[in-house]
């Protein structure tokens, strides 16, 4: 086994080597670029220096909006966080005579608190409504700045003291801050935590099934984004020397989003490209003062019509079009590997061996009942799944099979009864925690992140199984080893489910069968002990089904327990060791496939009045 694993690593060695070298070059370029940006204003006029400072501040905020957007939120309220930071510094420094440096941590905390409030709102309210809440939030902050005259001096505004005599020094500080914001938005998608954001954006239910605490993650990303936006606001106040509520109107938040839109949503360079183009625009349009906002409005619409993915997205597409000609054709391998990358370790085997001595079931449902209003979907179901077995759940449409899977994976709460996994009562345990305990699942209709590649989708599954802290992910070099491991594991898993060529293909370009297999790979990445497959064979051709049978057999060989929901009898006949039949939410039979196919109750459930038919035939 060890030999095979090393072989797999050996094949990928050249790729990793290349990647590593490119990273060093990129680092050099980044340092040189930063140095060039730092000295650039020394050779330009004061005006250019001011302009560059503003471009960097706006670009940073847009980058932070972008980061919040990774989780699927389009914020039109970052002007509010920005204002909170600016006013925190201005009030503390001007009204209370505090040192400006000391106000920065306060701005960070104030921004974080505001972000947390919107974060909590994001738990209750989804997508569009959340965007509306952010708009309302921005308006409230601006109106409060106007109304709380004793603190903010109302519409007349507040002076903000200088931080340095030389504006270039301030520029350097802001450049470093902008570099940090850029780095976060650039590096986050390459970390475990960042991938979990994209998983949430794609589908919260499947994110939970990968062990991601979606609620906590959403609050955290908004807190992070808002707190840094607060600091950006502090810099903005110092840069202007004076702030008033007028600076933080709804138009500012719109402008930020316009920058993001023009630059390219989701792209790390996009925010700064957008800021570079749109920040100087008002100054260039100074002769058309009256038409300025009109042009902004037209740009909004033009951006969506002409560059739906922004300038960066359009550039990428051009590059991509050339590259995609060389992309390998997608095909299913004839013979895939029979091993799972990290199931070869001794630790799991010994754990399982212990379990087998107990001879207790891995999963047990006792009197599980689920009602939807008056409809009883599953009624007092008792179900035991033996360790390392392949168990199937069958029944006519509406018999409660999918509901049962949803109860086991924690998406539905039980109305009555309890669920035991590996000797522990998990009835009250949430979906993401069950995933962490070792229950993985696939969905009847694959729930993948369609805009990302197959490889990235599998990588999301490693959220918990390969531990990596946010900090080590962001500092990059310590994480390189982990990222490399995740990359190798993910590729091996794609090999395991026999779609290795799909690694670089976007999910939306995969066939239905490939998506189903990809979901199995992603579920395996969470390192489960029990895997729930919801109709894995539906929509598959005969040949694809043979592949799937081999894969499921390999799962068992690697020590996993499999629970299948399936209609296809030939498929079940060659796999299932034990079959449970449901009808109208009740268990009507259980046994080997042969036993249940002779059970009169089962025949009646499937074919209705069998006897009459038989009579008629004879």
């Amino acid at each position, binding site marked *: 086994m060890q030999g095979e694993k090393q072989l797999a690593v050996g094949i990928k060695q050249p790729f990793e080597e290349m990647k590593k070298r490119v990273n060093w070059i990129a680092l050099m370029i980044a340092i040189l670029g930063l140095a060039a940006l730092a000295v650039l204003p020394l050779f330009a006029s004061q005006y250019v220096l001011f302009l560059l400072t503003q471009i960097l501040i706006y670009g940073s905020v847009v980058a932070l909006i972008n980061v919040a957007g990774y989780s699927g939120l389009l914020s039109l309220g970052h002007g509010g966080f920005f204002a909170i930071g600016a006013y925190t510094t201005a009030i503390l420094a001007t009204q209370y005579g505090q040192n400006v440096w000391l106000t920065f941590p306060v701005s960070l905390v104030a921004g974080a608190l505001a972000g947390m409030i919107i974060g909590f709102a994001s738990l*209750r309210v989804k*997508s569009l409504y959340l965007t509306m*809440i952010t708009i309302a939030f921005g308006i409230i902050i601006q109106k409060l700045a*106007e109304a709380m005259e004793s603190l903010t001096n109302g519409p007349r505004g507040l002076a903000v003291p200088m931080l340095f005599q030389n504006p270039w020094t301030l520029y350097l500080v802001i450049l470093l801050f902008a570099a940090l914001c850029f780095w976060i938005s650039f590096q986050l998608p390459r970390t475990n935590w960042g991938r979990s954001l994209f998983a949430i954006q794609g589908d919260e239910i499947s994110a939970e099934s990968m062990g991601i605490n979606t609620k906590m993650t959403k609050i955290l990303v908004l807190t992070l984004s808002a707190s840094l936006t607060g600091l950006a606001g502090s810099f903005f106040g110092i840069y202007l020397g004076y702030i008033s509520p007028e600076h933080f109107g709804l138009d500012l938040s719109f402008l930020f989003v316009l920058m993001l*839109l023009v630059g390219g949503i989701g792209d790390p360079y996009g925010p700064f490209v957008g800021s570079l183009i749109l920040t100087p625009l008002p100054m260039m349009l100074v002769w058309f003062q*009256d038409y300025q906002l*009109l042009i902004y409005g037209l740009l909004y619409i033009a*951006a*969506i019509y002409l560059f739906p993915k922004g300038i960066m997205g359009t550039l990428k597409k051009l590059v991509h079009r050339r590259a995609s000609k060389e992309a390998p054709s997608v095909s299913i391998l004839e013979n895939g590997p029979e091993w799972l990358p990290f199931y070869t370790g001794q630790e799991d085997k010994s754990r399982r061996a212990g379990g087998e001595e107990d001879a207790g079931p891995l999963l047990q449902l006792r009197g599980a009942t689920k009602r939807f209003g008056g409809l009883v979907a599953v009624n007092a179901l008792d179900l035991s799944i033996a360790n390392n077995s392949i168990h199937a759940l069958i029944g006519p449409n509406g018999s409660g099979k999918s509901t049962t899977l949803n109860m086991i994976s924690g998406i539905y709460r039980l109305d009555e009864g309890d669920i035991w996994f590996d000797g522990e009562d998990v009835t009250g345990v949430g979906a993401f925690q069950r995933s962490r305990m070792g229950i993985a699942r696939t969905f009847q209709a694959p729930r993948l992140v369609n805009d990302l590649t197959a490889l990235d989708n599998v990588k999301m599954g490693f959220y918990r199984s390969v531990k990596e802290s946010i900090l080590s992910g962001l500092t990059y070099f310590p994480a390189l080893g982990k990222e490399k491991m995740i990359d190798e594991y993910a590729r091996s898993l794609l090999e395991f489910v026999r779609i290795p060529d799909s690694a670089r293909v976007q999910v939306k370009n995969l066939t239905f069968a490939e998506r189903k297999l990809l979901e199995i790979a992603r579920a395996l990445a969470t390192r489960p002990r029990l895997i729930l497959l919801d109709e894995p064979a539906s929509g598959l051709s005969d040949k694809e089904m043979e592949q799937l049978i081999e894969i499921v057999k390999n799962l068992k060989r690697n020590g996993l327990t499999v629970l299948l929901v399936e209609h296809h009898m030939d498929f079940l006949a060659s796999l299932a060791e034990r079959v449970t039949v449901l009808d109208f939410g009740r268990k009507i039979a259980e046994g080997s496939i042969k036993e249940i196919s002779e059970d009169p109750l089962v025949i009646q459930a499937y074919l209705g009045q069998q006897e009459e038919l038989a009579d008629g035939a004879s």
Partner: protein
Amino acid sequence: MSDIIQSLAAGLAMGAIYALIALGINIIFSTSSIVNFAFGDLAMISTFISFSLMSTFHVPPVLAVLLSIAAGMAISLLMQVVVIRPIGIHNLENRFEWLLILLGISIIFKNLARIIWGPRPRAYPNIFNDSNVTIGNVHLSTQELWILIVAIAIMVIIEWMNRSTRLGWAIQATSMNKEAASLIGINPLRIISYTFLIGGGLAAVTGILIGPVTFLSPEMGTMVGLKGFSAALLGGVGSPRGGIAGGFMIGICEALASLFLPADYAPAIAFGILILVLLIKPTGLFGRTIIEKV
């Protein structure tokens, strides 16, 4: 005490305005899943058109009002084309491009108005004679009374349309399921266009009703529109009756708050209520909860 009743009456009139906007936003949303963010600005543009017709071209008030309603409908239909063209009518609820396009349209409207009519607020000619009606010891201006009468009449007409006309049924079928509606011979795009037309007319009526109360200015639409939108959210987007209730609630809360707090706080209060309600009941007060099927 009479203070409270007096501001309740004023709040009722403003609430009727918000309710009308919520109604317009809801009817467009029900078929297209688009929340018309530029609704307030559309109301503003229509009001300015009726203003120009009356003061510059000396068109009789009734004709001017009818013409501006027609203009509101036409502009609304144009908006529908601009918004839906790049996206298509399917899966609109999961896209945000339309939101950004509408923001762009809102900015354009505001600045077109500024260029054409200037940034200064103007007084809107009072179509009804400027007098007060006294009921008990509560004074209502005729305008406020008219707002209530017209708003309630429109609400009744829309309710009747939804219940008893073929168009109303087609709108409901489209809002339930566009694909299924097209299978029974309904053209969803056409029904969406009808709702944009109705919405545009409502926007114009709302603007004309509110014109004499607030002054005419390019900015007048933004806040009123946002509050009308809040009313729709408060009642649950897609629920016409909820939107009406939400509108009256916001109007009354605002009026009562102005008794105890400086006027500067009023907008913060309206949106504060919105955030609070959404946090407690995300689907709005009258919205239905949808269980996602896995």
